[in-house]
């Protein structure tokens, strides 16, 4: 499902003395199958953009197109439910949304709200649980008896069970240990490829952005500062540093190495594998040339 935002503006508490522009003039195209990473400082408007992707917020100016649906400011927008069924959103700390008595009931809650039969929903629950790396034995447990990491996975399974075409992720790994973080990011990536989803990820981790995304959008003070492929974005690392943003560790290392050895590698490398090969080759040749 193609998504596009054109010149979207959103004001919180519009027409009150506390009105506040959170994002403005945001235009982003997300064709089907794109993995897009949204990065920027806290308060730059990332979560606000995300909430437009399944019509939780309706723009105060501009248009959001989600598949066939057009959501415009100043007009009654119908059939938002259809949009919400197609776009699954995993909020920050999604375990806070759990409420049912058992894990199974919680996972089937979403699908059944959208009219999926109980039988079908239960089948999907099993499937989703497997995807997030949990066993079926926890289906009958109360979600509140699980560990933090398990709760997170159950909440994610609840979103996956809605079989969305678009997956929107707001810092899905915050607070997890390194292994949990890695497993969940890999899980989303596998799913993205296998189901040909569009995935939109908000993250503070430049490593994840460089590793998984096809497209990166940098937000600053409510505006889109820059967009492009990871290679494009990180090929001018000093620009990011100037904005007070991090660059991936690999890129940072390459910068330091280039400076120390006073050389310039042919391009910016985004993985340890590639960079180490390039450096090995360089050192093999001898740098003194």
């Amino acid at each position, binding site marked *: 499902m193609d998504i596009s935002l054109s010149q979207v503006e959103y004001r919180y508490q519009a027409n009150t003395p506390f009105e506040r522009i959170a994002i403005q003039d945001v235009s982003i195209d997300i064709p089907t199958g794109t993995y897009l990473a949204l990065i920027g400082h806290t308060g730059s408007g990332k979560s606000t953009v995300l909430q437009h992707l399944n019509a939780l917020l309706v723009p105060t100016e501009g248009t959001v197109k989600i598949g066939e649906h057009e959501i415009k400011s100043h007009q009654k927008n119908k059939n938002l439910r259809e949009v919400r069924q197609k776009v699954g959103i995993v909020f920050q700390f999604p375990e806070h949304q759990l409420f049912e008595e058992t894990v199974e009931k919680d996972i089937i809650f979403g699908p059944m709200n959208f009219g999926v039969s109980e039988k079908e929903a239960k089948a999907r629950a099993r499937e989703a649980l497997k995807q997030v790396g949990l066993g079926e034995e926890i289906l009958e447990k109360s979600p509140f008896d699980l*560990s933090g990491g398990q709760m997170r996975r159950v909440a994610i399974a609840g979103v996956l069970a809605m079989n969305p075409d678009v997956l929107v992720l707001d810092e899905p790994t915050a607070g*997890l*240990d*390194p*292994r949990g973080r890695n497993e969940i990011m890999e899980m989303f990536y596998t799913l993205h490829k296998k189901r040909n989803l569009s995935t939109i990820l908000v993250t503070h981790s430049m490593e994840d952005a460089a590793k998984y995304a096809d497209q990166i959008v940098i937000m600053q003070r409510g505006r889109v500062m820059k967009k492009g492929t990871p290679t494009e974005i990180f090929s001018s690392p000093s620009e990011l540093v100037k904005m007070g943003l991090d660059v991936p560790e*690999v890129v940072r290392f390459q910068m330091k190495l280039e400076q120390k*050895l006073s050389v310039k590698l042919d391009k910016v490398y985004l993985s*340890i594998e590639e960079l180490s090969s390039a450096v090995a080759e360089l050192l093999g040749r001898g740098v*003194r040339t």
Partner: protein
Amino acid sequence: MTKKPIISLNDVCFQYDGQDNYALHSVTFDIYEGEWLAIVGHNGSGKSTMAKLLNGLQFPNQGKITVCGLPLTEENVWDIRKQLGMVFQNPDNQFVGTTVEDDVAFGLENMGIPREEMVLRVQDSLKKVKMEQFLYQEPHHLSGGQKQRVAIAGVLALSPSIIILDEATSMLDPRGREEVLEVVRDLKNENRLTVISITHDLEEAAKADRIIVMNKGEVYREGTPEEIFSMDEELIKLGLDIPFSVKIGKAFRQKGIDLPKHYLTEEELVTELWTSHSHK
């Protein structure tokens, strides 16, 4: 440097009511005065439980804890809390006051410090965490990093000798995280603090003086960052990770670049590549 234990744990076991497993099992180690100790471990490995025991928020079922020479008991727990400040993970759930100054004053009020002195200490500690301009600000107008700095100021105001950070930066963005760590680093140097930092951030742990690795309620290993990070794949099995410079060092070695040891910072590694490989 002479190492003087400021905290010691001896065969400490702890079990939450109604739980089958021990949250901590037979934990024994010392924490030395003036060091920066990082405690790492997978989710649920018992790190927070340990922090709670050190502060007398829970008492062990078995074993002995000594803090600043005092055995930790119900009687002197309040004296120990004066020595040992804690900053927790969630910036919102530890902000008690309605404004920044009230929050910093909270601990002082509890100690019964006279008001004139409180005013001075509040201003002084807020200055130390670079938040002096936010005296009258309300918490919901502050960023996560700012709230955590206020929490640190609240701890500092009581001039403790030990500060425990229980994942104090894990809900912050990179900039907020750096702000907070920088403040703690400066404070440690100026005030001879002992810092115990519970963290999932291995880059941060790599900068510590010493690391303790927890696994399933037990101390799995303790040592310097060099020692710990040379465990390599073993760490990944424990649910942890290795710092970037160690990872790339490994990749270099595989590509035939000869490196004599593990490098914990990128600077060291870059310097090594420069000295021994580029102009021989």
